[in-house]
């Protein structure tokens, strides 16, 4: 308490420094006056009395200084002196100050930009109430595989729990078509179960939320609009409530509008975007549907730990095993993760990598500034020596120099913050569309306290980092030696060695960055060069929804396909048209299958992608047939059931057998619509196509003909899925999209069609995140190379300048130009090769963290390492060449005369 009081009084003193000064003057003046009066009383003449009083008093300045120290903080006072002195010193050498501040501003700015992005994705908590208590359910295996989502059957088991969590909710996101002014428009939408809005804290701006009875099966069609759609489609009018909205051709009654700031995009993910329409999921509480098409989240009750929830989930998994035998494999169980962790997903590693990379750039910038400071240290040797001789302690000198560094880094930090705010916009302009949580038009990336704290911290740490080495170096030098010798030769030598080491460190770091960037560039090239398994050129795709109730039977869909085929084949530039449930690189459905006649060691033999296709699907996409045959118009509902598999499936299940002799039963375990599936004869093997996940081996895939789909599955697909049309065209595909869309509408009785996308667009999007990492890392790598080259140049130029005298003597004694050249280049070569050796070793130990982002190139790819090393060697040579040439142009007479 007493200490606090004293601290408080000092703080007050600090704030009222001016008044303190005046009070002190008054108090001392009063004292003097009293003493003077006493002296006069004892008989001294007035003048003598004043002089005597003064003399007795001693040093007023010292007294004032002491009082100031008592009343404020002594360290603060002298620190303020340091700062003033530092400002004066920096102002005296503006070139140095500007170079230092700019280098730092670039480094800090790049870090601020990268951190803003990382902050938005990884650190900023979701904007839902109490997000630390929201968990997401999943199925995990001991082997470490995990899947966060669930089926209606799993949801029903989870909703029996009352104690561990409340507001359990299932939801899923997708696209739906809405009837707009001109044709149709595809918009993101969400289906949500009863407690969704209370779980995520959503409120309405108009109208109301769903009633519990509106979320029961067959309760009718209702919709809640996003605030954005309300403004766009209804101009924010209250008339929207109660009116009808055609979604996928089906009328829905609008009952409410969500408030503007509700963040649906974070949940839906960057691929879907902000849901514009919310509809009730209307789950059947008795459903045995085993399709894992839902996301399931809940709010933990207060006091329930994550461990307790996990234990409860394992128990519920056993209940589920009893109710739905054969669904969970023995090694699988239920578990949950925090919402935030699930939302971040795969984005974590690449973002940390890029943040690490930009940190390297800052370290290199630090090394450059430290090098500059070392040079300055030599210039200021006399000044420091004089101050030391006048009694400044080593600590004081170090503090003074560190204050200068701190000032530089803070200026760099402020400028860097401004630069970072600009740079983050550039960064987001490269946004591949796969970064979660940054929100529509990147509104989630903002300058919050975390970013400010990060920049402040980085600036200070930077100042200490680049400042401490030169400061300690300067302070260690002995005053007497420095004053006696003219240049302080021994210091220069040691200093030059330290600078050499700094440049070695710069090359090491820059090399690691460039190796990483080059590996990503090679990945990107490999992705461009390697065939995706289909021919993406001049292929247009359009997604069509069959929701309007006409397509509950397979025969109806087959008829639709025939009608459309007939019409679009009359369009002049359509080479071939095909149709399937999914096209490559898009989200897909995977089903379990069993191989007929093979002994069972588990509930099923395998799991594979599943696609429903028309006979011309493979031709339209250019997927090659490897064995057997493709589907034909003769594969109908009445002909024997058939299936086509891909090469990956053959390699995994029939490595030494003829797959065409085997039969598959697909998806029968899923229950109702699938339980009528019978054994299908494998009639063909097609090539593998590239999947969405980089570097993963091709997965088994099965294709079944549209005409042989059970009616129930067709109805399910019409309700939930899409039909994707594929057109191979003669010219630019997008140029024909309007014409084709028109034909589709005419032939289908005006079914809604989503905007056309070419397969090249889809392929481009699939490599967008690789491209993002590649571009960003290349920019960082390039900046690092440039900084390192500057470092080498600066060091060599300075050492040539320092050795002018020596070089001129050598030349006067007959040294040839080439010898002088090699003198300079030799030193540079030593430093460069040291940096390259260390850099290669460091890169080799770091690049494995890139593995998940690489494709077609090993993290230790020798060609990459060699090429980058050679590049560094040549850049370093060029950087050293200029000073080396200058050395040979030294005129011995001039140089010697100068001495």
């Amino acid at each position: 308490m007493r200490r606090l009081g004293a601290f408080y009084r000092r703080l007050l003193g600090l704030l009222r420094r001016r008044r303190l000064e005046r009070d002190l003057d008054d108090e001392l003046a009063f004292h003097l006056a009293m003493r003077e009066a006493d002296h006069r009383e004892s008989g001294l003449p007035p003048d003598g009395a004043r002089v005597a009083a003064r003399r007795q008093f001693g040093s007023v300045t010292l007294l004032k200084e002491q009082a100031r120290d008592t009343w404020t903080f002594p360290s603060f006072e002298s620190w303020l002196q340091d700062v003033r002195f530092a400002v004066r010193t920096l102002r005296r050498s503006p070139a140095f100050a500007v170079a230092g501040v700019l280098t730092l501003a670039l480094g800090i700015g790049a870090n601020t930009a990268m951190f803003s992005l990382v902050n938005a994705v990884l650190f900023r908590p979701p904007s839902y109430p109490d997000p630390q208590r929201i968990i997401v359910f999943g199925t995990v295996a001991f082997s470490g595989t995990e899947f966060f989502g669930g089926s209606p059957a799993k949801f029903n088991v989870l909703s029996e729990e009352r104690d561990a969590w409340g507001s359990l909710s299932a939801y899923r996101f997708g696209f739906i078509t809405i009837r707009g002014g001109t044709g149709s428009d595809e918009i993101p939408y969400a289906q949500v179960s009863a407690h969704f809005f209370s779980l995520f804290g959503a409120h309405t701006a108009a109208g109301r939320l769903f009633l519990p009875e509106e979320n029961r099966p067959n309760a009718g069609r209702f919709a809640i609009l996003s605030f954005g759609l309300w403004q766009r489609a209804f101009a924010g009018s209250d008339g929207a409530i109660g009116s009808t909205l055609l979604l996928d051709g089906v009328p829905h009654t609008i009952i409410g509008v969500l408030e503007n700031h509700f963040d649906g995009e974070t949940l839906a993910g960057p691929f879907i975007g902000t849901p514009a329409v919310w509809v009730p999921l209307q789950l059947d509480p008795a459903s045995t549907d085993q399709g894992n098409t839902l996301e399931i989240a809940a709010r933990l009750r207060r006091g329930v730990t994550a461990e307790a929830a996990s234990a409860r989930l394992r128990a519920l998994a056993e209940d589920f095993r009893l109710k739905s035998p054969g669904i969970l494999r023995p090694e699988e169980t239920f578990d949950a993760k925090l919402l935030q962790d699930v939302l971040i997903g795969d984005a974590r590693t690449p973002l940390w990598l890029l943040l690490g990379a930009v940190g390297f750039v800052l370290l290199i910038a630090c090394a450059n500034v430290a090098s500059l400071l070392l040079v300055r240290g030599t210039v200021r040797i006399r000044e420091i020596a004089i101050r030391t001789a006048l009694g400044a302690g080593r600590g004081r000198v170090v503090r003074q120099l560190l204050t200068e560094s701190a000032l530089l880094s803070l200026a760099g930090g402020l400028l860097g913050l401004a630069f970072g705010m600009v740079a983050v916009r550039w960064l987001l302009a490269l946004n591949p569309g796969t970064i979660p949580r940054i929100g529509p038009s990147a509104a989630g990336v903002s300058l919050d306290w975390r970013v400010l704290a990060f920049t402040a911290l980085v600036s200070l740490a930077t100042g200490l980092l680049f400042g401490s080495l030169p400061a300690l170096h300067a302070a260690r030098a002995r005053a007497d030696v420095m004053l006696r010798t003219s240049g302080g030769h021994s210091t220069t030598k040691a200093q030059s060695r330290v600078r050499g080491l700094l440049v070695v460190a710069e090359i090491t770091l820059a090399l690691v960055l460039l190796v990483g960037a080059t590996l990503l560039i090679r990945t990107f090239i490999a992705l461009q060069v390697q065939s995706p398994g289909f021919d993406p050129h001049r292929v247009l795709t359009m997604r069509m929804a069959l929701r309007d109730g006409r397509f509950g039977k397979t025969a109806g869909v087959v008829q639709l396909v025939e009608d459309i085929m007939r019409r679009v084949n009359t369009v002049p530039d359509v080479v071939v048209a095909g149709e399937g449930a999914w096209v490559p690189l898009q989200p897909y459905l995977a089903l379990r299958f069993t191989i007929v006649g093979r002994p069972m060691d588990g509930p099923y033999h395998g799991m594979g992608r599943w696609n429903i296709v028309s006979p011309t699907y493979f031709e339209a996409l250019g997927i090659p047939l490897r064995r057997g045959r493709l589907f034909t118009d003769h594969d109908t509902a009445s002909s024997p059931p058939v299936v086509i598999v891909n090469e990956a499936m053959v390699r995994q299940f029939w490595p030494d057998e003829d797959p065409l002799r085997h039969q598959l039963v697909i998806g029968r375990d899923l229950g109702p619509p699938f339980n009528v599936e019978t054994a299908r004869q494998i009639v063909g093997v097609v090539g593998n196509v590239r999947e969405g996940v980089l570097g993963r081996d091709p997965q088994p895939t099965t294709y079944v003909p549209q005409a042989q789909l059970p009616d129930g599955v067709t109805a399910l697909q019409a309700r939930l899925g899409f039909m994707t049309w594929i057109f191979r065209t003669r010219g630019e595909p997008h140029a024909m999209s309007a014409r084709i869309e028109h034909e589709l509408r005419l032939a289908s009785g005006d079914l809604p069609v989503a905007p056309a996308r070419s397969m090249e667009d889809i392929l481009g999007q699939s490599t967008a995140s690789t491209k993002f990492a590649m571009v960003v890392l290349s920019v960082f790598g390039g900046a690092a190379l440039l900084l390192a080259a500057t470092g080498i140049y600066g060091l060599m130029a300075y050492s040539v300048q320092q050795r002018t005298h020596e070089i001129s003597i050598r030349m006067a004694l007959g040294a040839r130009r080439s010898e002088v050249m090699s003198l300079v280049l030799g030193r540079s070569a030593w430093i460069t090769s040291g940096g390259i050796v260390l850099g290669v070793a460091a890169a080799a130990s770091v690049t494995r963290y890139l593995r998940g982002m690489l494709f077609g190139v090993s993290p230790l790819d020798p060609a990459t390492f060699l090429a980058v090393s050679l590049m560094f060697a040549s850049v370093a040579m060029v950087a050293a060449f200029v000073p080396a040439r200058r050395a040979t142009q030294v005129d011995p007479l001039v140089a010697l005369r100068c001495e």
Partner: protein
Amino acid sequence: MGLRERAPDDLLPGTLDMLILKTVSRGTMHGYTVAQSIQRVSREVLRVEEGALYPALHRLEVRGFLRSEWGVSDNNRRAKYYTLTAQGRRELEREAASWTRVAGAIARVMQSA
């Protein structure tokens, strides 16, 4: 705290604070009176220099043992008056007790020779 505790030749180190507290305990007074008073009461044996007096006064004020206010002196000048606080009184008692003990001990040692 980086303060140089300057003791005059005839003042034991560390006792100045105690002497000031004791002096001020007799009533509110300004710095000059404190110095004069110590000199007078000690019969001119102890002399407190300004260079030690004011840092000590300020130190004691910062630590909360003295309270100060500005007033007008007899000769119509602006003067700073110091008063002992309750906290200061406790500190004085503590220091006085420890002083008595040490002084007694020293006296005993000196007499034993």
